[in-house]
């Protein structure tokens, strides 16, 4: 994949997890998930809606900040993206702090909508570009939202995939853990073991490479998707695709 960028690989890979959905929502500070959603929409034959927080063109809400959560609570949102300062092997995510909550070593912004959306959106894709033992840990220091819940807890949603700069994990809901699904070109299974702080399952047989986008997909990403995403993330679009105004 000499001439395919990591960003393009990720956009293509995420988009293939969105095809066929009716409504994909993307939170703040998420250029790659945003581009992936726009790519999926472009091949949906006008049957997918994409809402992107912070976008003027892709924001069709008219009932204030609560509407996106109401929509999710009602089952009108099929996929969403979450990240974590820490993510652990039970798919718990931490967006709050490292160390003691009351006197932390590090403090991050906060949990945003994760304490709700992770429970109700059927297909939550975890996205973390720093794949190290610092970020993918055995146990998070603060649970902004748990990966799994007790049987009696209302939980129509939850984790679906975890994608990093090194690989793609799928979620095993029965065993409540991650399973390595594919390794990005240029990376190895050994490296994944070394850099991951939690244990994870292996697939049967060989671990495949994450598929690279085909020529049509690549053209779509570099053309219309790059153009659309530049409305919201001009610096990203300029850096990765060389399009749009720089921020």
């Amino acid at each position: 994949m000499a001439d395919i960028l990591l960003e393009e690989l990720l956009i293509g890979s995420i988009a293939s997890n969105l095809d066929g959905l009716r409504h994909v929502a993307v939170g703040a500070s998420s250029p790659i998930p945003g581009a992936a959603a726009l790519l999926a929409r472009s091949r949906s034959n006008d049957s997918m809606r994409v809402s992107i927080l912070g976008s003027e063109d892709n924001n069709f809400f008219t009932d204030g900040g609560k509407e996106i959560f109401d929509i999710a609570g009602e089952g009108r949102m099929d996929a969403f993206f979450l990240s974590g300062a820490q993510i652990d092997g039970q798919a718990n995510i931490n967006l709050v702090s490292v160390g003691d909550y009351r006197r932390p070593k590090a403090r991050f912004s906060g949990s945003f909508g994760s304490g709700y959306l992770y429970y109700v959106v059927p297909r939550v894709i975890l996205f973390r570009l720093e794949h190290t033992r610092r970020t993918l840990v055995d146990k998070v220091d603060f649970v902004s939202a748990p990966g799994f819940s007790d049987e009696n807890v209302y939980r129509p949603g939850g984790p679906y995939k975890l994608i990093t700069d090194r690989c793609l994990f799928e979620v095993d809901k029965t065993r409540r853990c991650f399973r390595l699904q594919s390794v990005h070109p240029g990376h190895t299974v050994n490296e994944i073991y070394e850099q991951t702080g939690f244990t994870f399952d292996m697939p049967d047989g060989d671990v495949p490479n994450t598929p690279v986008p085909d020529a049509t997909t690549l053209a779509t990403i570099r053309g219309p998707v790059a153009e659309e995403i530049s409305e919201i993330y001009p610096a990203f679009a300029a850096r990765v695709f060389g399009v749009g105004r720089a921020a």
Partner: protein
Amino acid sequence: MLATRLSVDELATHIPDGAKVALPPDYSYCSLATTRALIKRRAKELHLIGVPAMGFQADMLIGAGCVATVETAAVTLSEYGLAPRFTAAVRQASIRMMDATCPAIHAALQASEKGIPFIPLRGLIGSDILRERADWKVGENPFAEDDPIVYLPALRPDVTLMHAPLADKFGNIWIGVRRELMLMAHASAETIATVEDIVEGNLMDDEKTKAGTIPGLYVTAIAEAKRGAWPIGIPGGYEADHSHLLRYVKMAQTEEGFHQYLEEFVFETAAVAAE
């Protein structure tokens, strides 16, 4: 009924020490002009409520020592990174944190808006957000068997502070699609606002404008403040002052630098000229 019209400094007196203040996030309509007035009069012990998150406004108030409690789903400066005075205050445990998740704040405000004492919400069970919130409870859904759900008490801010593009002399405030501000005004005991312009006529007279207007019924007082959101922007109005915000973030990395920022841009009357 005519609106009470005040100067920005007078407006800030409607946020007494210890008040619960609801604030919007940076991308909505924030009154940084009133933020500076609060810092100048050395407001104390404020309880900030982010609806559902906060940004520069909260970071400045926290850094200036005006804040005792922060109740929010996040404090973020978005592309400018973590909020430095917020982060330092949490690490030093000099503020009390009430971490939340966005829809819990919206729902608890809706309970206040409706005059109901509580509202249930899905999610949260098994999270440390819930574990740390002694004021929230887990109960049963009375319409099902073995279906635990979180009960949130109504969240009633003493005052909502905002900066809007337009108001009229009756205190009606146009906020367009930013209806979280409508919810905040409904849910709070009082609402105060700086506005870019106070227009002639009545915003309620045109049904298109009316659809995005907070009725004066909810509004205690307004103050005209041109560029009152500066150094952040307001949607559909002006852009954020990017270089100033970068300068803030750089200076605010240390307590000394932050206080130098306050001297230069808040306490100095030069601040007015800078706007």
